[in-house]
């Protein structure tokens, strides 16, 4: 750390040139879709979004190939997040349950829309503010500051910066300089905060599915009132699918989603423990 002869390779990597629009978040993407393409959010094709993501991913991988650069996982995962958010938004519309909407649900939809609308307005506001700041910076960068400092005759006069400075004080100063760093935290505020837990939903499914064997998703969720509960159940189901405990089957584009239990009863509990430990973080 203190050895100045340590070899450091000060090469730099240029950022990927991105020709397709890069969206800075789900709000950003929504803004783009709504403002420029004048589309109804719920008309947006999910496959288009997923395709765009895959194309973008391929492009990033190709760009990284043959160079020392790595695929930028930040970019890749951020895009995935956008796609996932949109899919969730759309899925919440399409899932059964909405059709049983009563007045409360309807009001809820409008509230939700208003919330999203205010988010988008806020997002747009800061986008424009950022542009103004950029402009300010551009102007400021054309004026260079004087940093010449003291003229020689005054240098002798200047207080001795090292008066009373010991090596220990120097070390303390270093530690002070590097100390106040924020603790990185995993931000999950963009995830849907829900009273329903995916873990709980999995537990219910693990109890129910082995008994019924095969069931349509619609029937599986027929007793649920809140759309959110349906979403949570769906996520739980995907988790079970990942664990290899269920098979999901859809005969065609508009067909029912069929759920088939393929797990062994014996391994149920063990796997449940494992699986739920991994997904509880989704609860928000």
């Amino acid at each position, binding site marked *: 750390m203190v050895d100045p002869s340590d070899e450091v390779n000060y090469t730099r990597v240029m950022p990927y040139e991105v020709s397709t629009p890069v969206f800075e978040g789900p709000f950003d993407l929504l803004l783009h*879709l709504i403002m420029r393409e004048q589309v109804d959010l719920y008309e947006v094709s999910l496959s288009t979004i997923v395709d765009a993501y895959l194309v973008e991913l391929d492009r990033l991988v190709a760009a990284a190939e043959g160079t020392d650069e790595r695929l930028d996982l930040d970019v890749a995962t951020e895009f995935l997040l956008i796609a996932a958010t949109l899919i969730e938004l759309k899925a919440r519309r399409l899932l*059964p349950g909405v059709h049983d909407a009563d007045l409360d649900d309807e009001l809820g*939809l409008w509230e939700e829309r208003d919330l999203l609308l205010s988010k988008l307005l806020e997002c*747009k*506001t*800061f986008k424009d503010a*950022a542009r103004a700041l950029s402009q300010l910076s551009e102007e400021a960068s054309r004026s260079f500051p004087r*940093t010449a400092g003291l003229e020689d005759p005054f240098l002798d006069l200047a207080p001795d910066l090292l008066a009373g400075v010991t090596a220990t004080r120097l070390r303390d100063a270093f530690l002070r300089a590097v100390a106040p760093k924020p603790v990185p935290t995993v931000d999950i*505020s963009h995830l849907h905060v829900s009273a329903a837990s995916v873990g709980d939903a999995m537990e219910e499914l693990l109890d129910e599915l082995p008994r019924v064997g095969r069931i349509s998703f619609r029937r599986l969720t027929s007793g649920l009132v809140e759309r959110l509960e349906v979403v949570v159940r769906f996520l739980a189901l995907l988790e079970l699918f990942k664990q290899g405990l269920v098979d999901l089957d859809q005969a065609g584009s508009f*067909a029912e989603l069929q759920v088939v239990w393929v797990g062994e009863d014996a391994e149920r509990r063990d796997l449940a423990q494992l699986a739920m430990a991994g997904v509880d973080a989704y609860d928000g």
Partner: protein
Amino acid sequence: MADDAEARRAIEAILMVADQPIEAQLLGELLELAPQRIEDLCTELASEYDVTGRGFILAKVAGGYRYQSAPDLAGHVERFVLEGQSARLSAAALETLAIVAYKQPLSRGQIAAIRGVNVDGVLRTLQQRGFVTEVGRDTGPGQAAMFGTTSLFLERLGLAGLGDLPPLGDFVPGPEVVEALEQGLRPSGLDDLGDDEPADGGSPDAGLLDGGP
């Protein structure tokens, strides 16, 4: 106590040897003048340089005064200054910076809530670049780190202080944008509830995993 003429000259002399913006407060202490008097004198000097077409300006930046080259001469100065162009910030970083600038102090979570994405990476970049720093801790239970902008940020934007930021209200979208957004977010599902629901339960809207619409 210095008279105005001498105070003006003294300010010029001191700023000429300074290597960072000097606050009116300090100049006032040195010259035994009220800070407001210093502000006035500096404003006079700045306007004098402007009127007489000097190649330098007296700028108020990050709360202090300093000499800078005149912006219109950037072409000449750039050829002289050796250090080249610095890296520019991505749009994501810039927007995050704008949020921090206008909403400070605020937590990582609050920024993420506005941007709709995780901002860890972007925030780290802004901290590395010295534009954003931790300014304290939330008093709430989690004691989340609160972030704000630095004086370097003000310097880079050529602002005397945060009060000189263009008002955020200037950027609030107009009614036509609001209308367009409202239109785009029309909860279409409401219109056709129950109308087209086949008895067999097949979803009429779209296949979940295919393209729709």
